[in-house]
């Protein structure tokens, strides 16, 4: 675990906290974007290029924009006058703690499964500085091609099911929107 | 329908792009401070007062009749008539302007003053680089700044000046003839004066009381 990891982790956590704690909803959305970017950097730090770039492309390029648009379109852009804490903060905290516990348990439980020797992630400090074809042992580093082959081979059925689902959702969204527009007329 | 309109437009702009390098019809720009176009003869910017001879005060054609002051649409002319009268070139006593001021920040270069002037005394200048550091005083032209010789008028409006000169020479001749028929000595002296004026390169100003065939009847 290098210094860079801690820096990125701190950035991510700070972004996440800011997203929860800031008053202005648009600032929250932007802070969330910072958290997304931090996550992407973590992926890259682990040499998972595809996951990292997909994180940026989807979460920063699309999801963040979506969130921001949603905020603006639902009149949520005004700064609330009162505090940022909701009255049901205790429930929220409990739920968050439960989720964190489950995730933590999952991580700790899977730790013994990792091969002990394979910790080459430190070699690639950042994706930007990766020199072409470094002499890193190809332990858990998954190339884009491998992901592609896996998606088009072994996992083709889940992929297609997800695609159908998303298409259906898209069509549904369009129909909902069209319906509203006609009602407005 | 399939983008051919856009392609046609692109071809047109490409033609203009290359055309502007070769055709003066296309590239009409004149790079002003270095290149200058001679102003058209009819060009008009701001009025000036014409004088004959060398001494601008004596030769000023303006008789302070104040017609231009009255007719000026934006009222930018101010004239103060003299109390006394000075003899003009034919010896006829005429008033002259004590003050004649034109505020060229108000003037709109309409040429109405030139059109209504019966004495050919006010004409339009073609000088246009008149910027000044003082926007009030600097743009209020007084008599000394306004008075310009007939030679200058000839230079900037040759055709118009030639017409005016010819007309005035004709009137001079008439006045001379009139003077000759009068036999008394005083008139003869006046005719002498007029003759010396006529011999001068700049013919004298016309007389308002004389009828000028087309100019006068038009007004």
């Amino acid at each position, binding site marked *: 675990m290098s210094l860079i990891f801690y820096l990125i982790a701190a950035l991510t956590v700070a972004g996440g906290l800011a997203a929860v704690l800031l008053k202005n909803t648009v600032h929250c959305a932007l802070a969330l974007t910072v958290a997304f970017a931090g996550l992407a950097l973590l992926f890259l730090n682990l040499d998972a290029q595809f996951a990292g770039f997909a994180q940026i492309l989807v979460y920063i390029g699309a999801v963040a924009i979506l969130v921001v648009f949603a905020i603006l379109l639902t009149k949520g852009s005004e700064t609330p006058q009162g505090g940022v804490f909701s009255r049901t903060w205790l429930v929220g905290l409990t739920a968050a703690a439960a989720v964190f516990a489950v995730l933590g348990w999952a991580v700790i439980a899977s730790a013994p499964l990792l091969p002990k020797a394979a910790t080459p992630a430190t070699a690639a400090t950042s994706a930007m500085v990766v020199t072409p074809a470094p002499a890193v042992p190809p332990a858990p580093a998954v190339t884009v091609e491998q992901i592609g082959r896996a998606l088009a081979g072994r996992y083709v059925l889940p992929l297609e099911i997800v695609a159908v689902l998303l298409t259906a959702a898209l069509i549904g969204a369009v129909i909902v929107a069209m319906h509203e527009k006609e009602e407005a007329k | 329908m399939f983008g051919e309109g856009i392609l046609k437009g692109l071809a047109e702009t490409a033609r203009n792009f290359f055309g502007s390098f070769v055709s003066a019809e296309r590239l009409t720009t004149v790079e002003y401070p270095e290149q200058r176009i001679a102003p058209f003869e009819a060009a008009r910017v701001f009025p000036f007062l014409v004088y004959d001879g060398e001494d601008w005060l004596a030769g000023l054609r303006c008789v302070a009749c104040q017609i231009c002051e009255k007719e000026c649409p934006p009222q930018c002319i101010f004239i103060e008539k003299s109390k006394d009268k000075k003899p003009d070139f034919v010896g006829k006593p005429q008033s002259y302007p004590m003050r004649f001021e034109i505020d060229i920040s108000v003037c709109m270069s309409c040429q109405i003053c030139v059109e209504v002037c019966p004495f050919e005394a006010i004409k339009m200048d073609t000088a246009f680089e008149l910027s000044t550091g003082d926007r009030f005083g600097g743009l209020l032209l007084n008599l000394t700044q306004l008075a310009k010789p007939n030679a200058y008028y000839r230079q900037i409006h040759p055709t118009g000046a030639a017409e005016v000169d010819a007309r005035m020479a004709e009137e001079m001749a008439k006045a001379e003839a009139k003077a000759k028929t009068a036999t008394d000595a005083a008139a003869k002296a006046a005719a002498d004066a007029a003759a010396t004026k006529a011999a001068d390169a700049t013919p004298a100003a016309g007389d308002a009381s004389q009828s000028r065939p087309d100019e006068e*009847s038009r007004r």
Partner: protein
Amino acid sequence: MSESQSHSAAAGENPEGRKPGSQNLVSQRPESQKLEGWNRPARTEPEADGQLLEVSMGPHHPSTHGVFRMDVALDGERVIRLRPVFGYLHRNHEKLGEGQSYLSSMPYTDRLDYFCSLSNNWAYALAVEKLAGQQVPERAEYLRVILAELTRFQNHASSIGFLIQEMGASGTPLMYAFREREKILDLFEELTGARMMCNYMRFGGCRVDASPAWLEKARARVAALPGFVDEFERLLATNEILMARCQGVGILRPELAVNAGVTGPMLRASGVGYDIRKVDGYGIYNRFSFRVPLGEHGDVYDRFMVRLLEMRESVKILEQALKEIPAGPVMDPRLKLRNFRPKPGEAYGRIEAPKGELGFYLISDGGPNPYRYRVRPPSLINLTILEDMCLGHSVADVVLISGSVDIVLGEVDR
């Protein structure tokens, strides 16, 4: 697009006779949709389904042609309400005219529609001539036609240029228009002494005569004009983006146009064949053969094309006038410009200015000044229906529609 269909279907009630069966739609149109007041809030048509965004476009907006303001209420980008606000350039033109001699008002008319000073001169001269019963020499009439048509040509070219500029074409058509306008203005300057504020016409003729050299130059220029129109047409007329932007946008129904007193290319683009050059035949226009192009749909594209076609017709008139121009005086020799006192009475002189019917209404009480001096400015009256054309369209279209009206604020606010 269903909107545009219903509009074009309702486009009836015009003297030329249009699609049968469309007439009854006009009579059935509910009262609420007829034009009553220009500042009335939204008609029944568009309805906001969200929060309205009030935008004040102008008076310092890049595309309002000067100091003109539109208070626009937007739902998203759709216009729900639009209120044109005039008067930022009011210069008291009419009252000035009442305090001045007939001659002194002439240079002020230049400044009404400063793109077409010669047309304004003519309209005013026509009114005074009617008032005084003044005749105009033949050659002066020809010169007036030549100058007015040159003015029309350059005005239409520039107005198309501005329109496309507002569509975002980074000024290319405008620069081409200005290139040609430059050459026409050179002609004006050579003849009248000024490029824009010509102050050339007088009641009873024209101020100075045109030299044969000038006429030759004018002939050469006019011979080059059709090439310029061709260039414009190649550059713009079939451009898909332009068609997509202009067609079906800002439809002006002919009955509304007539009711609102819209004139000029705007009216003709709506399909009403009304051109004062044909209707009045003022000056000597009935001697020339030219056609009046008419639009079909009354949208922005029709206005654009009608202007383009009118440029071609202007060239035709110019060619005839420059060929037939007789010799002779350009001014009635008996006329006195100074101390001009027409007999008591009233007169309305109107011409087909490039922007529409430009009229001057004068009442004389026998004095040296008009008792009443009134201008009928086409720009202002054509602008009054702006809201009706813009409702339901987007902001981008508002800019386009106001551009297609072809206004000059000097004339709107006077």
